């Protein structure tokens, strides 16, 4: 038996002649196989490239690129390039501004340019559109002319914002994503306490996702174990129950939760009629954080059950018997023998549920109220306002957080230990 491959190799050597070394021939043979394999996956590769890699690349680019102002104000871009940061705007600067306003009026770019500045200095959009409307009536000297129209044109914050926007490449959107803003002299500072939203929401999103993941794990583990040990017929029935949420529309499921959980809903009414709580003490189970957690756990549960089940099903019961015969109690057997063998499933389920939870927005939007909103709801908000760059920056932050956790997971557990199905 052992000699067979060697004989085959010798036969091949004889056939190909001795001049080509074995290594080269092996490489050639494998290259052919590799080429064929590559051609087979090429369609999928192109599909992924078109639908995934390119859009994500574009999104990342948008988060740091916005030419709404720089493309509409060529003269100012030149002036900002020629002067150092913090320079007081002089008559030359205002002349450039006036010529750019005329340029915007002709090309109808004032709205876009104003919007870009508006992100940094609220209220700037109307400033630009109004000024552009009357740009053809402006005469030198431009500084007093513009000041006469609106005193805001002298605002150093406005000029700092325009200087930043003079380059299409910007970190403004990330700055605002971490609740920061620019000062007039080019530095950065935190925004007022009242308008800090993102960092706290970011932390809350990850925290809530962690809570949802832990609850899912605690609920799914026994169910998956039952599924894996029950006779096939009954396991299938139970499996259908687990998968049922998959087969109903998300909206239907969410609506039924509203029916169940609202303050006049089924659960509260039951509790009241059973006398556990008074009529004035109805629990707030929905339109808050609790609602988000309950409904998301329900929706994401199958994503925890399935990987756990697929791992548990193939753990032979003989290991538990072996452990018992070696003197372990049933608890020790579970902790030291069974649990470690389910780790790949736990890892897969936790990762899956956590990542899905971090990115969810429909459910929090519907049942989360003000308190149960997650980071994705902010992304959705900016998208609905067509502030693509801000949405992209927030999405990139979310992606970075998930990737960081993924990396941590790989360091701590090892991604090769993952078993998704």
């Amino acid at each position, binding site marked *: 038996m052992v000699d067979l491959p060697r004989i085959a190799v010798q036969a091949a050597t004889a056939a190909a002649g001795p001049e080509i070394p074995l290594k080269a021939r092996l490489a050639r043979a494998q290259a052919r196989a590799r080429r064929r394999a590559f051609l087979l996956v090429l369609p999928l590769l192109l599909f992924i490239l078109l639908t995934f890699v390119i859009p994500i690349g574009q999104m990342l680019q948008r988060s740091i690129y916005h030419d709404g102002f720089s493309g509409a104000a060529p003269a100012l871009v030149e002036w900002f390039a020629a002067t150092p940061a913090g320079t007081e705007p002089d008559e030359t600067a205002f002349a450039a501004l006036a010529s750019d306003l005329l340029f915007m009026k002709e090309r109808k770019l004032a709205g876009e340019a104003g919007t870009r500045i508006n992100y940094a200095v609220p209220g700037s959009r109307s400033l630009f559109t109004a000024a552009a409307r009357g740009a053809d009536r402006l005469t030198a000297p431009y500084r007093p002319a513009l000041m006469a129209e609106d005193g805001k044109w002298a605002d150093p914050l406005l000029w700092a914002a325009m200087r930043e926007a003079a380059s299409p490449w910007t970190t403004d959107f990330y700055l605002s994503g971490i609740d920061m803003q620019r000062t007039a002299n080019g530095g950065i500072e935190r925004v007022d306490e009242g308008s800090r939203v993102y960092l706290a929401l970011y932390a809350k999103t990850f925290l809530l996702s962690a809570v949802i993941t832990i609850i899912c794990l605690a609920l799914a583990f026994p169910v998956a174990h039952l599924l894996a040990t029950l006779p096939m017929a009954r396991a299938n029935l139970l499996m259908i129950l687990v998968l049922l949420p998959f087969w109903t529309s998300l909206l239907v499921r969410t609506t039924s939760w509203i029916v169940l959980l609202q303050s006049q809903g089924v659960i509260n009414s039951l509790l009241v009629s059973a006398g556990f709580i008074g009529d004035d003490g109805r629990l707030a189970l929905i339109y808050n954080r609790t609602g988000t957690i309950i409904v998301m756990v329900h929706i994401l549960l199958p994503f925890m059950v399935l990987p756990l089940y697929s791992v548990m099903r193939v753990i032979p019961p003989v290991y538990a018997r*072996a452990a018992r015969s*070696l*003197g372990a109690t049933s608890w020790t057997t579970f902790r030291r023998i069974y649990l470690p063998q389910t780790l790949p499933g736990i890892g897969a389920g936790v990762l899956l549920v956590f990542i899905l939870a971090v990115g969810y927005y429909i459910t929090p939007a519907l049942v989360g109220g003000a308190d149960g909103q997650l980071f994705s709801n902010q992304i959705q908000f900016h998208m609905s306002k067509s502030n693509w760059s801000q949405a992209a920056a927030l999405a990139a932050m979310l992606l970075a957080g998930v990737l960081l956790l993924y990396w941590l997971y790989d360091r701590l557990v090892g991604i090769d230990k993952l078993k998704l199905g």
Partner: protein
Amino acid sequence: MQKAHDPGEYVAFRHVQKSYDGETLVVKDLNLSIGQGEFLTMLGPSGSGKTTSLMMLAGFESATSGEILLDGRPINQVPPHRRGIGMVFQNYALFPHMTVGENLAFPLEVRRIGKDEREARIRRALDMVQMGAFANRRPAQLSGGQQQRIALARALVFDPKLVLMDEPLGALDKQLREHMQFEIKHLHESLGITVVYVTHDQGEALTMSDRVAVFNDGRIQQLAPPEDLYERPQNSFVAQFIGENNKLPGVVEELNETRALVRLATGELIEATPVNVRAKGDRTLVSIRPERVEITAGPMSENAHLLDAEVREVIYMGDILRIRMRAAGSEDFVVKLRNSIDQRRLDPGERIRIGWHPQDARALDVI
């Protein structure tokens, strides 16, 4: 059945029955006592209840009725982890997420044995199975034979008095299996442990055991040392299950304590040793081992019975020649001859006289 504890009796099954479904008994009235230090093998065809009996002893199945005693104490209610019985499983059941060393440490850790002693014991156990260099490997990185040794070491590392093995060598190739048989036997002798071994390989049972319990249909058919089992099977099932044998159907014509005359279907009258025929006129199967049949007059005794036979086929098997012939009404009467230098060569179609000692012809029940 005696109830008092017999000091030579380490394990005892008393009227043990087992049913899984409440309808059929897979173990029917099992009575078995196993002495301290004994190597007892449960041998039998598939589904005969061997594993079930072993699992009841280990505590993984409960007896439906009857009593199991370990060292004089009933253990029906003792959970498996407090029985202190070592066990080797058919597919080794080494914990895949632990190294060999951790596998061996496991039974010691759950017994709260200190680190130093633990390490000493692990080293001793690994050396015992010549696997000292493998402590840091994972089970998946070992060959089947090596895994087998580790499973053995793990079952022995906490010094159990009783070790159960359920077809531990079933997954190994023939050569390795024979080698491991020898090693297990050697360990059994040097450690003085009691071993209950399950197999359906009769060769394994015969070479390793002090006594063999032949199971069929939930009952012990015969419990005897290997030699007795082979030479003096108590019934047709055992005769047929252990080794090869020629079965000649007939009717008992004359019967006393030591001698039975049996009229074969061909009308020939042969002499046999009565084993479990009860009366004149009973139908019987006369069993003769192929290697006890002689084809030359030399080694046959005075009163050996002689028959006419016709050679039909000669099969060369290396150490022996297996001759199939037509004799005593059977088309498949088998004779085994030693392939020695002076052995007489036979050719198909040849007519010869064959014979055997009446002691080797055993009149058994009809199945």
